[in-house]
Structure formats: structure tokens, C-alpha cells
């Protein structure tokens, strides 16, 4: 038990079944504060389902999720966002008709205080009234968040700032992924889950994204990463977890996992072990 007392996220026996298929099968995982763990595995291994279970978009059939020692199993995604868990989505889920600014401001939604007084029952009505009346405290808060958003967007160089008022649907694929990450950062997360942040990006863009994730890690952010580009996984991860058919088949430092025969077999199927590294790194 001692080792997970200081862990940020701790999964025990987490299981999710869809009909006869066990998408996530008794997964244990401990993520320490400031650590970056990558989850790799072939398509359909259950990585995204695992993310959904951690972020409350899906409920596990068995097992527990603890965040900073607190049992958060089965809590709603909105509660978990308020607890400081932010995620990006595999297929990219920006708000298409919202501007870049508004997309990232939604990321800061859980941090609204002045306009969302924590009053029971009539809280929502006060929120409506404050949104219409906009006293100076509300205006100041909105202004402060807008400045913060600009600062976050500045991390992406000239990729997003010049397009700050454009609707997200008009952005390139890579820029939409960037908006998603900016939105996640605006939540000021204590735990960040990135689901294939470089999917569909070219090598230059991938390198930029890798540098950004490295920077976030250097600042002490705790990160759970799903990624197919093994080069990036090897460079960034403190530990790597390999999933196949819902199960954890290997765990350890990058090099150890890379040469594990079970991993090679999972990636390449049976009887083709020779070319594992080149294939899976491609």
C-alpha cells in the first residue's frame, strides 16, 4: 500500500465489458505526482476505454479509480473536471462553431468563480442574472481569463494566436489538436490525459508537440499519454504500460518494454517477431 499513498492516480482491477468483449480487463496502474506514463498497444487494445473510465465518460463494471487518495470511481465527468482532471480526445473534439478563444475559454469553465456563485438551489439563477448584469467582478474575471488564454495560445507560437477569432471548424487538423491541448491547459489540470495528441501530424508538427509535452512535464504536470509514435513515447515517458486485448501485458522503463517478447508479439501478431521495432516505430 505504501507506494500508492503518494500516487496521484491509482487504478485497481479496473474492468469494463461490452457484451462478450472485455475492453479493459483488471487494469492496475499507479501514477505518481509529476510522473509521465505512456500507454501503448495495438488499436482496439482498450486504451481509450481506459481513459473514458478514468474521466467519468464511462463507468467501470469492476475496480476502483482513486485520485489523490480519494475514491472517484463512477463520478460524473463534470465533477472530475472540477477536481482538476483534463483530457484530450483521440478523434479531436473541438467545438466546431466556437472561435479558438471561446474553445479555450470553455477549458477554463471550472475556474469561473465570480459569475458562478457556489450557492445551492438558486445558484444557476444567480449565474443567469450575473451573466446578464455583468457587475465589475464578472467583467474582471472574464478579462483575466481572456489574457490567460492568450498566454496559453502563445505557447503554440504563431500557430493559433493569429486565428484566435476564427471558428474551430476552419482550422487545419493539427491546429484543432493544438486547440484541444490549449483547452485542456486552460483548466489548469492537476492530471492531464492526452489521447494520441500527434495523430495525423507530420514530423515537424510531431516534434513541436513533443517539445510542448516535455515542457509541461518539466513544469511538474502529471500526465497519462496514449501515443502510437514510439520515438516520442521513449523520449518522454518515465514508464510505459503496454495493453493488448484489454490487459496490461507489460510495464516498465521504455527500453525494457521495447524488447519484451510479449509486446513485440502483441504489435505484430504471431510468428513475425523479427521486424518488431522498425514496424512499431513507423
Amino acid at each position, binding site marked *: 500500500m505504501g507506494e500508492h499513498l503518494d500516487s496521484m492516480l491509482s487504478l485497481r482491477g479496473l474492468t469494463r465489458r461490452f457484451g462478450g468483449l472485455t475492453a479493459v480487463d483488471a487494469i492496475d496502474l499507479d501514477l505518481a505526482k509529476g510522473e509521465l506514463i505512456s500507454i501503448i498497444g495495438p488499436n482496439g487494445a482498450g486504451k481509450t476505454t481506459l481513459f473514458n473510465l478514468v474521466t467519468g465518460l464511462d*463507468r467501470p463494471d469492476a475496480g476502483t479509480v482513486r485520485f489523490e487518495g480519494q475514491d472517484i470511481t463512477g463520478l460524473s465527468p463534470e465533477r472530475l473536471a472540477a477536481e482538476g482532471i483534463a483530457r484530450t480526445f483521440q478523434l479531436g473534439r473541438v467545438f466546431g462553431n466556437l472561435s479558438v478563444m471561446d474553445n479555450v475559454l470553455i477549458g477554463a469553465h471550472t475556474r469561473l468563480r465570480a459569475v458562478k456563485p457556489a450557492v445551492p438551489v438558486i445558484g444557476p439563477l444567480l449565474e443567469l442574472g450575473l451573466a446578464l448584469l*455583468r457587475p465589475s467582478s464578472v467583467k474582471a474575471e472574464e478579462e483575466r481569463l481572456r489574457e490567460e488564454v492568450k498566454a496559453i495560445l502563445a505557447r503554440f507560437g504563431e500557430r493559433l494566436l493569429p486565428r484566435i477569432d476564427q471558428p474551430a*471548424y476552419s482550422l487545419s487538423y493539427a491546429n484543432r489538436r493544438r486547440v484541444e491541448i490549449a483547452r485542456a491547459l486552460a483548466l489548469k489540470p492537476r492530471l492531464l490525459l492526452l489521447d494520441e495528441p500527434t495523430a495525423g501530424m507530420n514530423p515537424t508538427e510531431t516534434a513541436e508537440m513533443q517539445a510542448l509535452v516535455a515542457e509541461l512535464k518539466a513544469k511538474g504536470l502529471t500526465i497519462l499519454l496514449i501515443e502510437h509514435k514510439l520515438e516520442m513515447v521513449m523520449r518522454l515517458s518515465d514508464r510505459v504500460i503496454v495493453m493488448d486485448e484489454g490487459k496490461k501485458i507489460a510495464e516498465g522503463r521504455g527500453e525494457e518494454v521495447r524488447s519484451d517478447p510479449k509486446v513485440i508479439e502483441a504489435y505484430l501478431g504471431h510468428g513475425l517477431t523479427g521486424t518488431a521495432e522498425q514496424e512499431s516505430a513507423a
Partner: protein
Amino acid sequence: MSSWLDYTINGLIVGNVYALVAVGLALIFGVSRLINFAQGSIYLVGAYIGWVAVVQLHTPLPLTIIVVAAAAALVGLIIERFGLRPLQNSVRIAPLLATIGISFVLDQLVMLTFSPNPRALPSQLPDVRFQLGGGTIGPLDLLIAGVGITSALLLFVFLRYSKLGWAVRAASQDRDAAMQMGVDVNRVNQAVFGIAAALGGVSGMLVGMYYNQIDTAMSLQATLKGVVAEVVGGAGNVPGAVIGSLLLGLVESYGVAVFGTSYRNLFAFLLLVVVLVLRPNGLFASARQAPPEPLTGTFIAPSRPVRIPRWALAVAAAGFAILPLFPVSFYVLQTLINAWLLGMLALSLTLVAGTIGQVSLGHAALLAIGAYTSALLSLALSVPVGLAVIGGGLMSAALGTLLISPSFRLRGHYVSIATLAIGEIVSLVILNWESVTRGPIGISGIPPLSLFGYDLISPSSVYWFSLAVIVVLALLQGRLLTSHLGRSFRAIRDDDIAARAYGLSLNRYKSLAFIFGGFAAGVSGGIAAHLYSYINHETFNTQQSILALTVVILGGLGNVVGAIVGSVALVGLPEVFRIAAEYRILIYGIVLLLLVRFRPQGLLGTI
């Protein structure tokens, strides 16, 4: 008809009729994830074709059934080919709106051809009843049961053993995979729409014979009942639709036995709401399903709104404000008053359907709540009319939101069904709650509009009053859209899963949208009540909901200025061109269809 056996037989027979409609809906939902709101219209068309065949052509019964099935199938094929196939690659809201538009066009065409008066549809069968246990059963009951069972068997054989049937089942399990394996999805859609329409048409004819009466109001009722049965059985589940239909028939029949005929529909809609809330995937759906991951921004068409400078809006408002100072006719002012009242409803609907993406089809219920509240406050409690109208708005905001809240966990088409049903429930409660609403007699002698003790009788004073109200509501809504709530609402519309993952509670923000929108609609209804001086349960009907929806699409979803421009256009243009009232609904339906097809973002663009 007194024994429970009679009620059981009646329930099963009616259930059989619902099954013919519901099975078609389930087939269509299975292959195209679409709830076909035009299914009831095909049922209506079937009933009238049956009338033509029986009364005018004197066809024998077997031929009548074949003629009706063939003609209805043809209508179904036309709908599929020209109404829906062009929308295959468009946003998800498009086919939903298209079937609504098609339904109105078809209903109106039938009404224009045959007049809205009910007609008798004789059954051509001997009028005898056989003793069965403690109850009786007639030849028509047997015919309906026979048609139901035969259709089920034919459908089963088709789906299981024919090549096209395989393709239908494949497409309904995984459309993309089926396409990659060479299944021609257009042919599958054709088959499904043809079968669904044939079943629906025959069902309409049988119901007409069963009650020996057909009229144009049958359409909406059939759509609603079919959808209820289908959803109870699990959307897209064909055997489920049959069982759901029989269950619905029995629930209604026993409900009528215990509470009386006027409660029949109430039970159907309450059953729907209960099932949607407790088991949104139907009674027989497998356990929890994986959360779907729709692509973002595909519910509404992406567009950039047309920016109209503030000074231009101010000039336009000022122009309308000084209009009564010029020698304009009473008729012009009256038309514009109607436009302002519709505009308030459209502001409400554009927020709910456009900004937060809940396409409500029961919005007229909010008008009714506001109208009854304001009328009763001023009549029974002698509240000053100005305050009573505000009371109507507040009641509509509170009660409307409460009633619609079960639909907050639903998405897309389901929201439309639920709001349609909730709208019908409101209308039925008004009809049946006689001690408060005076039931079918309605409320008369409602005092005229007044403000601070001065009666607003002259057309120009009413005009100014309603113009002032809509301007204030529009300014407030514009302010709402620029606040954090505006972006929160739009985020929920674009992608509710991502919105939840960033801490936006769907219940909270959908409630706020309905509270704000409900107020505007309630005020509109309240003002209307004092203008008309008489209201009843039919004053605010589904036609108004559809008209408001057309206005909203015309102006651009979520677009405040668009809602007002759309109202002036749709109220004003038919007046300018002197289009007869009975053609207007037809035109609104056609406008809706053309917009969905050619300009889904509306005149001024989605916000």
C-alpha cells in the same frame, strides 16, 4: 364493451395497428438512424387512398389493400429519393428537419385535396360480432390481426432469406462496413422506405375502417403513437417495435377502461416520457452501450453569421417604432403585431434549438402555459394585465423547464420526440383539468392589454407595446449570447461529451436555456391571450411550433436578428402576396425543405 377481455382484445387490435407504423419507423431508424416524422403522413395518405378506392372506385377489399400498399410505397420512395437522399452527407439536423417539413407538406396536400372535414371509410366487411369467452370480436378485428401477423411474417422472411433483406440487416448493424462490402445503401434505403410506407399506408386505411372515420388530424397522432411504440421497444429494433406497439395498445386500452377516453393519449405520452427517462434505449435494449463518439460540429451547418452593424439595427428599430405615426392601415399594423408575437416565440426557439441544440417540437406548449397563466391571473385573481403577462412568462419559464427536464439527458431526434410528446401532454392536461382551465370550453372574456392602468386598445398602442417587448427580449438575448453562458450553450450544442469533460453540467445549462427561452415564449403567449380575449386548448398548436421552427431555420439557428427577420418575412410575405390561409402551412413546409436542402445556415447564418 365492459369486460376486461374486450379491453384486452381492443388493446391488442389497436396495438397491431401501431405495430404496422412502428415497424416501419424501426426499419428506417435501423438503416439511417433517422426518426421519420413523415411516417404519420404516409398513414394519412394511405387512409385517403383507401377512401378513394372504396368509396369512388368500389374496389373489393383485397384489391383495396394492394392499391393502398402500392400507392403508399410509391410515396415512400419519392420521399426517400427527393427528400432525403440529397441530404445524405449533410449535417445531422438536416434529415430530421426534412422529415418534419415533408410531413407538413403531405398533410397539407391531403387537406387541400380532400378538405379538412372528416369522412366515413366503410369497412366492406359484414357487421357481425362473434362471442369469444366473455367478450366479442368482429371480422374487422380479425382482418387487422391477420394483416398484422401476415406483414410480420413477410417481413421476417424478407429480412432473413432475401438478398436485399440481408443487405438491410447488414446496413443496420454497421452502415460503413456494409458499404465497404459492396452493399448499395441507396437500394437498401429505398427498400426500407418502400416497405415502411406500404405498412404505414395500410395501417392508416385499417384504422379508418376500424373507426369508420378519417380526417387530417390522424397524421400527427399516428406519428406520435408509432414513435412511442418504437422507442418503447428500442429504436431500430423491429421485434421490439411490435412488442412495444402491443404494450402501448394494452396500456391505452386499460387506461381508457379505468379513467375514460379523453385520457387515452395521455397514457401513451406518459409511457414515452417514462421509458425515455428510465430506459432511453428501450425496454429490450442490451445493458449500457458504449458512449458514441460523433464527430464535432456536425449537428448544425458550420457558417459565419452575417454581421449587421449596430447602427443599422438601431435605425431599423427606430423605423418600425415611428411607423404608426404615418398613415399606415390597421391591416399593416395587425400583421406586424403578429410578426412580433411570433418573433418572441422564435427568439425562444432559436435559443433552445439553435444555441443549445435542443430541437423542440413542442414549443407551442410554452405559449399555452404563458397564455393560460396570464389569462387566469388577470381574470381569477384580478392581477393587473402587465404583471399577469410577466407572470405568464415566469410560469412558462418555470413549469416549461420542469416539464422538459426529462429530455435533458436525450440527444438529437429523441429531444424532438420528447418535446413533441410533452407539448401534447400540456395540451391534454389543459383539456382535462377542467376545474382550472375550463376544459374544452376555453377561457373567454380575457381583459385587454393594459399598462399602469391604461388599456391598450388602439392598434398603434398594442403595436408599440409588442415592439417594445420584443426589442427588450432581443437585447437581453443578445447580451446572453456574448456572456460565458452563450459560449457554454454553444459548446454543449457542438459536442456535449467534450462539454461535460470540461465541467459543463448539461442539466444546469439546458435548464437555464429553457428558463430564458420559456420566459420569452410565455410572454408571447400571455400577450396573445389578452389580444385574442378567448383561448382554448387548441389555440396554441403544433402548427405554431413548426412555423416557429421554420422561422428559426430561415433566420439562422441561434441568430437573434435572424429570428425577428424570419418572423417578419414569414408573417409578412404571405400577406403581401395575399396567399390564402390554407396554402400557408404548405408554403412554410416547402420553405423549410428548400432551406434545409440549399441554405441550411439560414439567411443570416448560424451563431
